[in-house]
């Protein structure tokens, strides 16, 4: 039981963070939700009239015209979800073996490798993505080196495709998958693997029946950490996807900066926030709880 004294010191300690979150997070969030129900102004800004067609437009009926059904925004949203999920899959497939390998190294090497993996954070994201533009463009490093090796005869046109976007997104989000995976693989009790082998499981069966289930919380944490920034990302599709690969993040960015339709941008933001919120609730209920029980 917390005493009065504890409560007082606790509330004193929590006041700054509460104020900060209240002013800079919940406030803007409320503004966004309110804006999403207002009419767009012609030159930007909002007109203070209740207007629910921002949401109607997301679903395919713009401005209350029931006849013109055009689910273009749903398509963009679904593409974003598909790309984000694919990215989760790619980062998982790349990071899991890597994390397994790193956790088997000596302590000194482990620290070094983890440092190397976090190293790219020291360089600006935009700079790193421009490097990928230089690598992936037809006259870039990838095409010229493959041609130099005689593997291909013509430059490959990979930039401004979904593939390029996926490469870029996987690249920037790899550490977010690697670190939680590594943390959960590293704390895996080695004697469990011996117990499994002792009871007759070959290495593959041990992986499938012990290592994978025991590291599920790490997989889930990594998946959430990669999925959320992937879904809302607009820099990568902007630089590597060109005009061809539009994701929900680009759409929102455009609504605020180019189309000057703040209410529609707000409605889109509210929608992806709801999707992410549901995802996190699902995560906490299914996997988060099982980890607490341990």
């Amino acid at each position, binding site marked *: 039981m917390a005493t009065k004294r504890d409560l007082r010191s606790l509330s004193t300690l929590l006041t700054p963070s509460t104020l900060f979150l209240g002013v800079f997070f919940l406030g803007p969030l409320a503004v966004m939700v309110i804006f999403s129900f207002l009419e767009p102004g012609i030159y930007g800004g909002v007109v203070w009239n209740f207007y629910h067609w921002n949401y109607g437009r997301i679903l395919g009926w713009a401005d209350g015209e029931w006849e013109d059904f055009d689910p273009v925004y749903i398509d963009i949203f679904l593409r974003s979800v598909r790309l984000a999920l694919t990215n989760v899959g790619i980062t998982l497939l790349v990071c899991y073996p890597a994390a397994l390998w790193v956790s088997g190294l000596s302590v000194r090497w482990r620290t070094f490798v983890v440092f190397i993996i976090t190293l790219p954070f020291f360089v600006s994201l935009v700079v790193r993505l421009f490097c990928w533009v230089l690598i992936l463009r037809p006259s870039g490093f990838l095409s010229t080196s493959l041609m130099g090796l005689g593997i291909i005869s013509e430059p490959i046109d990979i930039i401004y495709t979904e593939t390029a976007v996926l490469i870029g997104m996987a690249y920037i989000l790899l550490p977010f998958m690697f670190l939680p995976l590594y943390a959960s693989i590293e704390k895996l*009790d080695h*004697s*469990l693997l*011996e*117990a*499994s*082998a*002792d*009871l*007759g*499981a*070959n290495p593959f*069966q041990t992986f499938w*029946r*012990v290592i994978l*289930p*025991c590291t*599920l919380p790490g997989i889930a944490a990594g998946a959430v950490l990669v999925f959320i920034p992937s879904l809302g990302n607009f820099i990568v599709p902007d630089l590597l996807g060109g005009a061809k690969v539009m994701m929900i993040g680009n759409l929102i960015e455009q609504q605020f900066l180019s189309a000057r339709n703040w209410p529609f941008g707000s409605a889109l933001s509210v929608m992806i926030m709801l999707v992410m919120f549901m995802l996190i609730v699902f995560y906490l209920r299914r996997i988060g709880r*099982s980890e607490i*029980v*341990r």
Partner: protein
Amino acid sequence: MDSIAEVREAVKRFPAPEGGVITALDNISLNIQQGQFMTLLGPSGCGKTTLLRAISGFEDLDSGEVRIAGESVAGVPPYRRPVNTVFQNYALFPHLSVSGNVGYGLDLARVSKTEREQRVGEALERVNLSGFDRRKPAQLSGGQQQRVALARAIINQPKLLLLDEPLSALDRNLRQSMQLELKSLQHDLGICFLFVTHDQEEALTMSDQVVVLDHGRIEQIGPPEELYHQPATRFVAGFIGDGTLFSGTIENSAEDPILVTEGGLRISVANGPSVGTNATLIIRPEHLNIAPQEHDNSLGILDAVLEQSVFQGATRQYVCKLANGASISVSAAGSGDEALSSVNTGDSIRLAYRRDTPHLILES
């Protein structure tokens, strides 16, 4: 009797953290017979766990071989060896229920669902855990986790069950009841148990054969009674049971041999050893009693001063100081106890032992 497992001239060396090598197994040979409860006993670092892991397949030998059921298992991975292990920290799978843990080996062997249910039920019943099958390991007490680990290891009906200090994490009362349970479980199942411990009491309670290890070498193999009454080396004598060791040289006085220690103590011993032999005598507390008034040639006498008397429940332990300054414990029985309890601390007493009782270890 059939040999279930055999270790031949096993040698294993590890690089020591501070450089150099540690010899964990130094030319170890032993033979485990059908139906035996064998214990590897020794202080930590004596190589007992390494030996166990060499049999289960988690450690490769530098030389020598392990044979299980007559066949060499060199190069055979742990998952193909017909042995199962109860691990020191139990190593239960945290994501699986009790039933999932116990049935793990059966699931791997793709045993049919009905047979699996039945065998898991039987195994849990054997360890008195019926009805716990849906719990997670985290919801069990230490003793219950121990039982799950045991059920999981016996369900595959191994030829040999390896137990790596499985009782060390339990409290004293639970440990003692588990010792007896393990012993009767082994008897009922009829499979060999190879039990590793550093606790001599555990080893004496449960084993048919005890292997005493020190510094990677076998000091002695034998049944508990033999280790206690006829220890082969100073190490075994000091490690098993209480008692005081006296080292010295045999000299002959008038008719009977006397062990003269470096401190100048003269202790008469049984006939047998020739004059000039170096030997160690072990006198256990129960060998000693208060000396009778009349002279008895079959008794050896030690002059001592009573220092302390310690109540231990069923018995009383008397700590006495000998002429050379060494302490010796006495746990006198019957009338001797009464006589001793009337002695004040600081008083001189005469302790007597039957000359042929304490064991004399001769050094070559």
